[in-house]
């Protein structure tokens, strides 16, 4: 399959961008680890979440923040490709066109998994413990991978449409803040009415609750299906909008 081979070649190229500047992975993991330290050792003592240790409660939300900060690099790399002219070079070559965007998306997926692993290791060092079996860990990896795919396709949109580097990466800020208004840091039942309603009905809560349940070794409940439905919906919408932005971009006439 020529499209698969093209995707592999182009993914190899953008992975090399990451290995050339490993700071992208370190920066991605640094902020979530700083949040872990801050919430566990500074604020955590005053936060009441029940019987669990706070870091075990906190980690799923921190993983969502890791994904949100990781995918913004896709917007950055795509933007730089468009600026430099190499995007057009690929388009004027006998290269399967879907491979050009998929290479960026797969690069993001792999880089995000590495960042997630770094954050989990840091959490283990800080006292995070899980009794979950291999199956539950795989399920966690699966749902976080799907979320990464969905948010990466979302990141493709500013990557294709932004007019400045800052604009290309700025979309991630709301994504990073969304976990704060969810069950990621504190249980939602401490929040006042409208905020609580929002927190309980936004995707981060469903995702965080599912991951927390899986890591605690509980059998998957309805929140897992709600989380999967959210992620699938975000993925479908983001992919459709990204393809629309892509078609508009390659049809653009200067």
């Amino acid at each position: 399959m020529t499209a698969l081979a093209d995707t592999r070649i182009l993914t190899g190229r953008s992975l090399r961008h990451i290995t050339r500047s490993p700071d992208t992975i370190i920066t991605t993991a640094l902020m979530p680890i700083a949040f872990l330290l801050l919430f566990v050792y500074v604020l955590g003592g005053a936060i009441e979440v029940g019987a669990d240790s706070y870091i075990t409660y906190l980690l799923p939300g921190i993983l969502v923040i890791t994904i949100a900060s990781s995918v913004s690099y896709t917007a950055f790399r795509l933007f730089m490709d468009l600026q430099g002219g190499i995007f057009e070079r690929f388009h004027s070559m006998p290269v399967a066109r879907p491979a050009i965007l998929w290479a960026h998306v797969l690069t993001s997926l792999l880089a995000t998994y590495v960042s997630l692993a770094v954050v989990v290791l840091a959490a283990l060092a800080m006292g995070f413990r899980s009794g979950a079996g291999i199956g539950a860990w795989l399920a966690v990896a699966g749902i976080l991978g799907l979320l990464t795919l969905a948010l990466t396709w979302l990141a493709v949109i500013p990557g294709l449409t932004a007019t400045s580097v800052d604009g290309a990466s700025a979309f991630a800020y709301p994504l990073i803040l969304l976990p704060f208004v969810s069950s990621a840091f504190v249980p939602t039942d401490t929040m006042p009415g409208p905020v609580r309603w929002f927190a309980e009905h936004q995707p981060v809560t469903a995702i965080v609750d599912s991951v927390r349940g899986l890591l605690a070794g509980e059998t998957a409940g309805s929140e897992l299906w709600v989380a999967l439905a959210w992620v699938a919906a975000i993925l479908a919408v983001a992919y459709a909008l990204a393809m629309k932005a892509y078609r508009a971009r390659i049809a653009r006439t200067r």
Partner: protein
Amino acid sequence: MTAAAIEISGLRHAYGDLEVLRGVDLDVARGSIVALLGSNGAGKTTLIRILSTLQRADAGRASVAGHDVAAAPAGARAAISLTGQLSAVDEVLTGRENMLLVARLRRVPDPGAAVDRLLARLDLAGAAERRAGTYSGGMRRRLDLAMSLLGDPPVILLDEPTTGLDPEARREVWAAVRELAAGGTTVLLTTQTLDEAEHLADRIAILHEGRIIVDGTLAQLRALLPAPTVELVEKQPTLEEVFLAVIGAKPAKEAS
């Protein structure tokens, strides 16, 4: 099959109300170098972008190596190589990695050997292991050109290949283009500078107000002017000749 490597007929393109191409007709014979001459905004880049399948024409047709760019873009892409105004190299990768990337995407057999050959030919072998981001303007343009030559595409499109280059680097690019055509490759290049067209091209086509108004050899173009009168004038060296003499340059390699 026809003998022309590029055939353009009745090509039109407008940006909103602005008609840039108003019925362009042009044939480029196989193995020739044709310079497309025109002032800024004459539509040269638009024409190149249509030929390289990056843009669609509003009307008319264009084909490269027998592949219609609108109906069979995949075939057209396999037959052409584009070097645009932006040096489309990956600054993070080294010169060699840039070359290998394109070689693999074009499925060049034995990519390593093909890359080494072209790097040597364009005087880049010494800089091959350095990141392209550290290259000078002339080196980047030569790398860009070298990337375009991988896989021996029969048609090369060069959009202002020497814009922004110093005279030395420009001569290096010219030498590379001449060598290409000698090897049977068809070259269509755009330029704003008349001496580039004069130095390089077998034929010159002038694009003006959306049409090709003149198309011929330099001799044919000269014949369009009134017969020359003979005057005795001291020939002053051009500043370019002075510059090249002072820095002692033959087609020099860049040191950095």
